[in-house]
């Protein structure tokens, strides 16, 4: 997964630094997807199982759109436009999922809602699998993925810089949106007390719908980035990242936006370093890296269930 191929003799600090950079990239994927999880969980207490699949749809949409427009608009501009188109599509699908499957269930027990989400995930996952015959599709960006700067043995590619910039901009914009705009405030208010919001005249359904749209758009950005970074997309790409993004959200404190960002970056870093450590111990780092991530999730839930930035909730009736 990570560009570890062709590792020669590195000095220790260079290895660490390189892994930090790789971890940061990985972390920004997790963070973008984790934000969607956290927003939805914060607002309707749903573990939106289908969120990883929305990410996958975003990746496919980006790939398809770029395939059509890349002749006229090549390069970064084309990729940017494709990601924008993917955001629109993912937003629509996210909204529809919410409207059709989740909204009628808001008063139902949490377990039923969770199971519905698993159903939605199955539907999206299998639809895409049937449409692509289970085969991966390849993404030719026309950009040299290896072009970039070198500092000694450390390498930062232009694509990496582009992605870091894109995710940082997105997260800044989201922070602004949540803290400053009316709708952002309404979202936070609904997370606290839905009934009170209804009484105050807030259109709760509309805000919940918007939350899904925004969360899905963020996932689509991550999906588009995955196209460029990995060069291929497959129907099952959302499954693992779904769990890892959830882990990120939990690490940061579920429901907390800055927490999701921090959690994503942390998990990315931990995973990159963990892989490196395991490889140096003679184990297959890439095979065990998921174990590492899920282990962190379990340990985190045991030691600090409210996350790094989550509030301790008052137990109330």
């Amino acid at each position, binding site marked *: 997964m990570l560009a570890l191929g062709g590792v020669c003799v590195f000095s220790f600090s260079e290895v660490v630094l390189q892994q930090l950079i790789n971890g940061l990239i990985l972390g920004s994927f997790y963070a973008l997807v984790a934000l969607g999880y956290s927003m939805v969980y914060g607002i309707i207490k749903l573990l939106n199982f289908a969120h990883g699949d929305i990410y996958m749809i975003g990746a496919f949409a980006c790939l398809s759109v770029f395939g059509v427009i890349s002749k006229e608009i090549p390069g970064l501009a084309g990729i940017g436009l494709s990601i924008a188109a993917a955001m629109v599509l993912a937003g629509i699908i996210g909204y529809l999922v919410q409207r059709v499957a989740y909204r009628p269930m808001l008063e139902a027990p949490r377990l039923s809602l969770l199971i519905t989400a698993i*159903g939605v995930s*199955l539907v999206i*996952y299998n639809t895409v699998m049937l449409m692509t015959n289970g085969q991966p599709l390849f993404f030719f960006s026309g950009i040299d993925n290896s072009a970039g700067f070198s500092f000694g043995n450390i390498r930062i590619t232009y694509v990496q810089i582009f992605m870091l910039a894109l995710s940082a901009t997105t997260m800044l914009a989201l922070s602004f949106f949540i803290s400053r705009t009316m709708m952002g405030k309404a979202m936070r208010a609904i997370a606290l007390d839905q009934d009170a919001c209804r009484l105050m005249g807030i259109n709760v359904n509309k805000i919940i719908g918007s939350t899904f749209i925004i969360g899905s758009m963020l996932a689509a950005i991550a999906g588009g980035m995955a196209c460029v970074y990995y060069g291929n997309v497959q129907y099952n790409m959302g499954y693992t990242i779904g*769990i890892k993004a959830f882990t990120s959200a939990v690490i940061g404190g579920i429901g907390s936006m800055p927490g999701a960002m921090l959690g994503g970056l942390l998990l990315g870093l931990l995973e990159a370093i963990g892989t490196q450590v395991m490889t140096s111990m003679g184990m297959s780092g890439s095979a065990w890296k998921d174990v590492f991530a899920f282990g962190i999730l379990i340990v985190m839930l045991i030691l600090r269930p409210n996350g790094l930035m989550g509030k301790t909730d008052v137990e109330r009736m």
Partner: protein
Amino acid sequence: MQYFTKIRQLLDNKFATRAILAALCVIMALLPLFLNNYVLNVLWNAFFYMLLAMGLNIIVGYCGLCDLGYAAKFAIGAYTTGILIKTYHWNFWLTLPASLAVSIIAALLIGGPTLKLRSDYLAIVTLGFAEIVRITARNSNITGSATGISAIPRPSFFGIRLVKPNHWYYVFLVLVIIFIIISGRIRNSRVGRALAFIREDEDAAQAMGVNTTSYKLLAYTIGAAMGGITGSFYAVKMTSISPSSFDFTQSVNILLAVILGGMGKIPGVIVGAAFFAIFPELFRDIPVIGDMRMLFFGILLIAVMLNRPQGLWPDKLGSEPGGLPGDINTVGRR
């Protein structure tokens, strides 16, 4: 729905229920005399799913906890038995208590810390744990890596080596009956009611004196133990096990069987499991439908949740705890 009502009325009558159950047992016991090995194997597979579904039903149906990694529970049982037989040359029957113990310890380790938290965290923790189990099995030498453990010898039972399909048919039929009895006894007891109170309203259950954390852990452990035992029998029946038998799809299949059949209702869960085992066989030769299976299940799942969250099995007319006969005349239908 009128059709359902009639079945239900029949089932609510204690005498009729017993007569039907007795007849069913006789029919099931005699079936192998008339069926070929292929059909017996399909039925065996149905029994196998029933066992898993009943185990998961304790967790999901009775207690309302969401376990997305049930495959790991039976993987633990299967691997414990597989390793003890192949590497340490244990007798199969002696591996059963070991498998039980390992399953229970694993359940306590995972459930203990997480069940104190919000219940929906359990979903993701069980999922993560299942992945850890699968990846560990795929990458460790003792579990035979990706190829798994093969050529596990078949056990003997009072001198009979269990090799024929009808042997396994009977072994699993007996297990199914045992699991039904266990499930029924738990359901109609103080413990079963406590689990149901937790499922319905955790805070109110706690206010009534139910130690919700330990009862959730109890349900989780019983479910895991049932899965572990099933896994042990699976290992010797199949004679080979590999990580691919325990993936996420398997966990989802079992969960779907429990939910579609009707959470908490034993007959519903059994019918649900049979449906999941037999459905792929029916469409085996039609590839397109075979591939669309999971899509179809997903749609079915959403539809059931939206319209009939209590599952497809009909409700009781006048339900009564304690396994007492229901009164046919009290028509308290929803």
